[in-house]
């Protein structure tokens, strides 16, 4: 009995504290008050965002009875592997977990996330529809609160563009023409590279073109990796690689870092978080970069995709799901927390209110005062995209198939790869027993 009541009382008290954060700590000394008020709840939180402990300090200092400890993770993939292992083992999972949007269906399907629709369902209007859709998977269950998003943007070396008499590309045709002109003028320079190891970026580019690789149709899944929109994107990048006007080497290698820094890579189709990466990889080129909206397929209907972004979820093993839900609600929607997220943890908050927290451009783009208005515009144009329960299967198949295609430098190999990925993804789902339409 007492075991069942204690958490409820604790959470009620916590809720009361939550409403009166300002005075709660001074009014109630820990020794006085009801016994339930002394019930301290300790939560663990897995995250890989930098400085997250400083954001959490903002919560801990005002919520003495719900203390959160950040446990720094290596990154999205290792954290998911660890969490799934803990779920299988029956213990060892944290209370709160940073979860990339594309991993949420995988985690839900492994029964790793708790439903927090009671605590956080009312937050729907505070987030862009695409982000909210990622945490509800289109249903009524809420598997997390969106934290950050990564709308795609285009980054380029303005000095190189000026030298070649070029403007920021408005369409993908412009981008192709600019890539050709730059490479012709200087055979060592490329406007970009096709990276076979970044399936997330390619998915974002397909998203921009209108693809949604998975979908739910009644009681069955649909998989559309080889659809017309994705074919268009694959053919486009395959064409550029075949022509040799862009490079075919993967991103995030020492080679690529050096190429960004020495001016061999003079553009990057990336997301709103790119300044942080460029600051680390291309520090010698500071002040020469500019951000622009994504090149478009159809300028009349501007669209963009996402690369990265994550939600904060409560795990199914948490013994204090209510307190955990309260904490993540605060962290991702409270104005003070959003300011900490943007300013200290350097993430681009998903919440609609965040625009007010983002006034000064990132340090690497300090001259570009409209940086965050471009980002906000991109965020609004993000197309809906549904992830499936086996994103990792599709992404690893992407790596292998497009790795071969990029190495062969043949546009036909790019478009053929999509059929391979589609088949690997559907076969895996059918083998596991998922109902897959078509």
């Amino acid at each position: 009995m007492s075991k069942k009541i204690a958490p409820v009382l604790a959470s009620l008290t916590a809720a009361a504290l939550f409403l009166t954060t300002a005075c709660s700590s001074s009014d109630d000394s820990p020794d006085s008050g009801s016994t339930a008020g002394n019930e301290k709840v300790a939560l663990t939180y897995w995250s890989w965002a930098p400085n997250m402990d400083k954001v959490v300090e903002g919560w801990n200092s005002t919520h003495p009875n719900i203390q959160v400890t950040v446990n720094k993770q290596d990154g999205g993939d290792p954290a998911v592997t660890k969490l799934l292992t803990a779920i299988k083992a029956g213990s060892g999972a944290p209370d709160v977990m940073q979860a990339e949007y594309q991993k949420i269906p995988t985690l839900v399907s492994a029964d790793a996330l708790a439903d927090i629709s009671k605590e956080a369902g009312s937050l729907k209007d505070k987030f862009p529809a695409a982000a909210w859709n990622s945490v509800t998977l289109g249903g009524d269950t809420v598997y997390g609160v969106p934290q950050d998003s990564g709308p795609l943007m285009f980054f380029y070396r303005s000095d190189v563009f000026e030298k070649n008499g070029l403007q920021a590309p408005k369409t993908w045709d412009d981008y192709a023409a600019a890539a050709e002109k730059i490479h012709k003028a200087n055979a060592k320079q490329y406007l970009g590279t096709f990276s076979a190891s970044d399936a997330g970026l390619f998915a974002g580019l397909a998203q921009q073109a209108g693809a949604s690789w998975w979908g739910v149709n009644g009681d069955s899944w649909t998989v559309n990796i080889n659809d017309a929109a994705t074919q268009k994107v694959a053919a486009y990048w395959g064409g550029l690689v075949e022509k040799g006007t862009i490079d075919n080497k993967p991103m995030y290698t020492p080679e690529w870092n050096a190429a960004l820094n020495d001016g061999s890579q003079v553009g990057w189709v990336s997301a709103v978080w790119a300044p942080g990466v460029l600051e680390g990889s291309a520090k010698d080129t500071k002040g020469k970069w500019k951000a622009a909206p994504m090149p478009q397929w159809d300028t009349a209907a501007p669209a963009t995709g996402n690369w990265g972004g994550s939600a904060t979820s409560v795990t199914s093993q948490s013994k204090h799901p209510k307190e955990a839900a309260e904490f993540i609600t605060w962290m991702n929607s409270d104005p003070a927390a959003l300011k900490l997220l943007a300013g200290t943890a350097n993430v681009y908050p998903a919440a609609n209110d965040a625009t007010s927290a983002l006034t000064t451009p990132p340090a690497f783009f300090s001259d570009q005062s409209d940086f965050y208005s471009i980002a906000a515009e991109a965020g609004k144009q993000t197309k809906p995209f549904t992830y499936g329960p086996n994103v990792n299967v599709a992404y690893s198949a992407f790596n292998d198939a497009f790795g071969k295609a990029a190495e062969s430098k043949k546009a036909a190999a790019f478009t053929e790869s999509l059929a391979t990925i589609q088949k690997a993804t559907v076969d895996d789902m059918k083998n596991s027993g998922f109902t897959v339409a078509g």
Partner: protein
Amino acid sequence: MALTTTLPRSTTASVAARPARKGRGGVPYAFLAPGLLLFTLFLAAPIVYAGYLSLRKVKVSGLGLGSKSRTEVWAGLSNYSRSMTDPDWLPSVYRIIGYGLIVVPVMLGLALLMALLLDANRTRPALSSFARIAIFLPYAVPAVVASLLWGFLYLPRVSPFVYALDKFGITAPELLSSSWVLYAVANVAIWGGTGFNMIVIYTALKSVPTSLYESARIDGASELAIAWRIKIPIVMPSLVMTFVFSLIATLQVFAEPITLKPLSNTISFTWTPLMKVYRDAFVRNDIYSAAATSVVIAVATFILSFGFLKLVGRRAFTQED
């Protein structure tokens, strides 16, 4: 009375006989116990568990969302058939055969050559021990670190060698491109493994009495003939042992390619059989087919190494007889 006298007699007889038998039966087990216990806990049990897992699978119902939508069921041999018919499986097997054909002869050849050279130079112990340590040192570098080091040397824009060659107007080949990548990975393994094998062979050489060489020299044998006719036949058991070790290491190659993977387009997730196991278990989250592939690799390793030992058995163990 008669009864009481005969009884003690029979008991003393059996008591006298028993301790000896008991001692012979129990003591060896007591000595073996720690080994057997550790073997059972950390080798046999996991193997049995992997075998069990390889016969199971998770069955999802419907959309697979929400709790209770997953159940573990018996899978029969379907994990095995799925693993073996995976289009990536055979290429990865062929690839490590090619990899083994490069690594094993080159590494053991180099190790033998260096051991013989060091052994021939017995007159300058200080120089010889420095050389020995220098050759052995790469073995002390973890494979992941070694792969990262070599990875930097392979990438044209960060490699000092490519830079230097470029200064002389020579364009270095792209070592991580599809035509070179097998050699690039093999090179890391050879660099790391030669020293260890050299030490094994060298130690065997050192135990050869010098009187053998003296008599050979009196008979007019050259240093080359001594090496070929005396030293190599004598260290044959060590060569066999290093060969079996290298064979097993080849079948299990993993750290080097998985570390170099993100640097290039040419190393896939299923580049070697063990990488496929890793992908299935940790990328695809399917430990069941990973277990099936592991069992197949373990059986293949067992057959190959014991088959080879049986083939050369008499030669390999002449030293112990």
